[in-house]
């Protein structure tokens, strides 16, 4: 994994993504007493992945709230708090269970600013671990970013490394709009990198060019980023690798700029292909960049099925599938 580092006037610590997120929450809560964390097991237990570890000790149970078992309640409670001037950070223990809160998300959270013409705004960040990696079967491995991306009014963010995780989370907390913050659980403990201990932000509306190359643009985000980067390195692909960071609204300029240069495009997501996020990236290019394209736009994605417990490893994209697609695209004349 190639990470970029920020050194200099900040003290940095080598952190996992979990630690970086924890550090972000700590920084934010310290600066702003309107921030409230809530969710199942986020308090005393510190979250099932430990993202909220120890925060209840520092900030008390009025700000780090163990809730009853209801995602509808967790999201709705957060919405109410944020309507009343607080800034709620609800956690959904696994993305797979967020569907029980879908009405709150689609009907209330996403629409509140628009339907009231800004009478009410909703500064809140809904965090949830998503995608595979823990081999948890159909209900612990789903991605589901497409449900949120297609919901007008939401901002959908997903980091791919500890540094971004902290900076993007802190940026999300500066928005006056609701954010769905998707944390790739396969990257929670996948490696450490230097992360400033102090507060900093990463621009939400800018994609990150992780690798530069002339032959092909590989567009990806979140859980699929390390796989793509490893594949590119290992196979010496001369590729632009674009990490979207924010799925909606995505950084159209970064994508167009790269595609104009390379004229060949692959999109890689861990979530399934059909009607997924990759479709919009491709469709946007088919609208705005058709004349630049010298090959079909291909997509490598999770299979279009629920995630089978025993066979998760065959469900997710892998190096071979990426290389097959890259070769097809590169050989296309």
């Amino acid at each position, binding site marked *: 994994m190639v990470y970029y580092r920020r050194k200099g006037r900040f003290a940095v610590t080598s952190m996992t993504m979990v630690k970086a997120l924890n550090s972000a929450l700590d920084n934010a809560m310290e600066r702003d007493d309107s921030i*409230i964390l809530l969710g199942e097991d986020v308090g005393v237990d510190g979250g099932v992945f430990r993202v909220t570890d120890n925060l209840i000790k520092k900030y008390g149970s*009025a700000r780090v709230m163990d*809730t*009853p078992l*209801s995602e*509808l*309640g967790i*999201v*709705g*409670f*957060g*919405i*109410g*708090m*944020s*309507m*009343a*001037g*607080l800034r*709620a950070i609800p956690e959904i223990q696994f993305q797979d269970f967020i569907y029980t809160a879908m*009405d*709150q998300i689609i*009907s*209330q959270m996403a629409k*509140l*600013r*628009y*339907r*009231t*013409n*800004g*009478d*009410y*705004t909703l500064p809140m960040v809904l965090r949830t671990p998503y995608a595979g990696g823990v081999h948890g079967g159909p209900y612990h491995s789903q991605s589901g970013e497409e449900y949120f991306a297609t919901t*007008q*009014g939401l*901002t959908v963010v997903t980091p791919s490394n500890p540094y971004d995780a902290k900076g993007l989370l802190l940026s999300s907390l500066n*928005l*006056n*709009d609701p954010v769905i913050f998707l944390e790739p659980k396969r990257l929670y403990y996948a490696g450490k990198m230097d992360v400033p201990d102090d507060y900093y932000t990463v621009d939400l*509306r800018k994609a990150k060019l992780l690798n530069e190359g002339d032959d092909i643009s590989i567009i990806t985000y979140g859980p699929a980023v390390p796989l793509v980067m490893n594949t590119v390195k290992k196979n010496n692909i001369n590729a632009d690798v674009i990490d979207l960071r924010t799925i*909606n*609204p995505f950084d*159209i300029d970064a994508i167009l700029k790269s595609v104009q240069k390379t004229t060949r495009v692959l999109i890689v997501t861990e979530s399934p292909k059909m009607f997924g996020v990759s479709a919009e990236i491709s469709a946007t290019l088919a609208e705005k960049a058709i004349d630049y394209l010298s090959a079909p736009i291909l997509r490598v994605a999770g299979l279009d099925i629920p995630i089978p417990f025993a066979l998760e490893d065959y469900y997710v994209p892998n190096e071979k599938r990426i290389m097959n697609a890259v070769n097809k695209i590169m050989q296309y004349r």
Partner: protein
Amino acid sequence: MIEETDISDEKLLNAYKNLIMERVMDKKMLNASRQGFLPFYIPLMGHEAMHIGLGLALRKQDFIYPYYRDFGVLLQMGIPIDTIMSQVFATANDNALGRAMPDHFSLKKYNIGAVITTVAGHLMSATGIAYARKYREIDGGVLTTFGDGATSTPDFHVAMNFAGVYNLPLVFFCENNGFAISVPTYPNESGQTDAYEETKGMIYKKAEAYGFSGIRVDGTNFIEVYKNTRKALENSNNTPILIEAMSYRMGPHSTADDPNKYRKNDVTEGSEKDPVIVSQRLLKEMNILDDNKIKEIEDETEDSSSKLINKYEKAAKPDKNTILDNLYEEEPWYITEERGDLQ
């Protein structure tokens, strides 16, 4: 029997005037909707005493998250009539630019939540607001209203549970009008549904499952509604409470509904349980009202409401160029692109 009360005669008389205003306006707005001046309308008949009682009960420091049938509450709260009417007629002056349906008010500066069409979709929001106010040690209670049908929803259960668990300053006020569109809360003689029985329908008793108490009040008696609700708001720092107000939806569910398909109208205008008749009886017994005064108020209201309706029927509609505003604080590139499509 004369009700004891701690409000002045003047206030009671004024409340009565608002109640009549709601009744008269309701008829005129229903009419406006039938003539196409209002694309949609939610009738209020039968709910007036609950609304006026709630409006009386709410103090400046309280917060209310209403549902879609609470026009009269705002009237009694003293919200400027222009604010109310601009919303109902979705005019250019509406603070939400006519984006929500009629009676879907959103008035943050008056401590009023943003009414949502989804039945019970606001109950958790009200619960969160109650938490925030408790956290910030803000004086006053939070009240939220909903219908009898709403008690079957997921949101009702979850909001009641959270309110109980965190002991929130929250009054759950159920406007039980006997129906969720065509489905009765209690069985009726014609036995049109076998879905409900009285014991299952004791809505106020459901509070016990969540560790706090529920009470039932006469929703056709605005003074009873007022007193119980005010008390609940004053006490709500100690515990949440559920109030079930018994009333009857005298009109159709909405302008799209034909109640003849599913019920005989048991409570009609002018009958004993009509909130207007109940209110007249109450205030006459208190010597606040007599037949002359009743007639005088009726005439005044008839006149003022006609003028209002006329004015707002003709009011300018929102500019189409506003349609893409305020989805996000910072506009995404595709919204900017779509501005071109409007031209």
